[in-house]
């Protein structure tokens, strides 16, 4: 069937979509770590991705953590078992949760079960991801300053019947009490739809001024 739409459509398979999403998550997490100054600026290096200069951390332990994470996320995505991924930023001293970056994933179950593929222009997906990345970078304008040293953690919300490798343990959701929430853009590969939401602890200064 002849497509009248200007952008040509590409075939997206489940495997490909999972790769796109897990890669997105890796870059998004790095971007968050850089923008929120969880790790010092010097430890990041610039690469070109999604038509933007993206920053990747060089620290070995974080790199290996990320690669383990992305490969596991990719696996879960292909099985259609992943519901969301949450990046939690906590104070190193008190362990209090300061920010919560919530990536909610909706999987088209039909693709997982029957192995069909979808069509969507790669460029379109890249554009959507680019929009999200820009939003993450600009988030520092409204997110409260993180004055203290912070650490991050990543939580994965999966279906109850998923096969859990022993390297993953059950955790509590690490929620924030009375958070401020901001919804960011979403992107869709037609197989996986990823929604982004950031919730953060109310800054006391803001409340006083208001």
């Amino acid at each position, binding site marked *: 069937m002849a497509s009248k739409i200007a952008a040509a459509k590409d075939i997206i398979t489940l495997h490909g979509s999972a790769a796109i999403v897990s890669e997105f998550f890796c870059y998004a997490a790095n971007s968050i770590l850089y923008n929120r100054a969880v790790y010092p600026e010097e430890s990041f290096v610039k690469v070109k991705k999604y038509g933007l200069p993206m920053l990747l951390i060089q620290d070995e332990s974080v790199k290996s953590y*990320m690669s383990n994470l992305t490969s596991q996320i990719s696996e879960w995505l292909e099985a259609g078992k992943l519901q969301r991924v949450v990046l939690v930023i906590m104070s190193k*001293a008190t362990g209090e949760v300061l920010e919560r970056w919530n990536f909610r994933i909706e999987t088209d179950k039909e693709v997982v079960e029957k192995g069909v593929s979808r069509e969507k222009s790669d460029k379109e997906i890249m554009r959507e991801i680019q929009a999200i990345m820009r939003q993450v970078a600009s988030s520092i304008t409204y997110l409260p300053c993180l*004055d203290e*040293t912070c650490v991050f953690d990543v939580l*994965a919300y999966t*279906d109850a019947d998923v096969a859990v490798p022993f390297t993953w343990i059950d*955790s509590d959701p690490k929620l924030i009490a009375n*958070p401020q929430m901001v*919804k960011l853009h979403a992107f*869709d590969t037609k197989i996986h739809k990823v929604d982004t939401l950031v919730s953060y602890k109310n800054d006391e200064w803001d409340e006083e001024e208001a």
Partner: protein
Amino acid sequence: MDAGMTTSSHLKAQARCPLQEHFLPRKNSKENLDRFIPNRSAMDFDYAHFALTEGRKGKDQTAVVSSPSREAYRKQLAETMNLNHTRILAFRNKPQAPVELFPSEHSASLHQQAKSLQPRRYIPQTSERTLDAPDIVDDFYLNLLDWGSANVLAIALGHTVYLWDASSGSTSELVTIEEEKGPVTSINWAPDGRHVAVGLNNSEVQLWDSASNRQLRTLKGGHQSRVGSLAWNNHILTTGGMDGQIINNDVRIRSPIVETYRGHTQEVCGLKWSGSGQQLASGGNDNVVHIWDRSVASSNSTTQWLHRLEEHTSAVKALAWCPFQANLLATGGGGGDRTIKFWNTHTGACLNSVDTGSQVCSLLWSKNERELLSSHGFTQNQLTLWKYPSMVKMAELTGHTSRVLYMAQSPDGCTVASAAGDETLRFWNVFGVPETAKKPAPKAASEPFSNVNRIR
């Protein structure tokens, strides 16, 4: 103790006065325990946000026709999330935390001093205070210690009930039971912190007013043998006996017996009402834990209980309802079982089982943090503090020289009192020091979702 001696001379005749302080040398071990302070919010804002904005999602999507299967799937996903079929996982090997930069670059150290937060809680390894508890009955099935909401501790030593005021440190005697009725087998403060129920060996239960030191009434005729466990639910006093019966008594009315729960075949040694007052958990010497629900019991079903949990292989005396998670009950088994099990009392499912290595005599949840304290017997006679839900041991408190049968928590949730057959009553600041104790997270804002913004 000779029969016929009056109360005052009885006191003098004793070699030791009860509830006198021991001054023990303390070893000053500063153990830094890594404690993660999780967040207490029970509301899942992310899901709530999703549920609220589901209708508006159409705007965000690129022009795509949602196929019926997609819509149906979307609905199912929302349902699934609602039914808690989600597992939350975190990667075990955490990445290395960022290295601390020079103080001039980060105002972190100054910031912390200004906030005066204690980053790591120091849990003292020795008891803060030790009092004498002579003639305390060393019987696993009794419940002889309770701390009331007016900050007064009640302890039964033999035939006498003593009250220890925690704010002033003074001891007073409430009552000495007559020889043929005693010894005292259980004691429990009413929610008002003023009235106290005393269960006796002869199956009677006496109700006392601690403010005026007067006996208000006696509940008799309900049980056939000793009353080893008591639990209050507003005006209902639930009593558990050696005859296996559990009786709900309304203490305001003339014939108090409102209901009798039958199910246990041996002594009922553990009895606890849930925080909501809707469910009652009972543990018996028959190794069975029953969950009784007020709505189920009143209906005419074949069995009165909501759940009958038979997984324990020994008597279950230790029962504790979780303060921060509804429908979560922790139970501990005796010498042959030695496990702590966690139950969803809504479905009756066993969520977790942990082998502690020794008889579990009592369990207490922390009111401020997600922690559980258990008391044990042979061989260590220790109190173990566990992190929940990971069940990692945070601290082990030793000091007692015989099994720690009885435990009670202070009303402010910071101190735990424990008594054992070694005739000592010890106080442990295991849940935090009163000044820095955190208040539980404030409940949801008046208008839910008022703080949701959108970026465009």
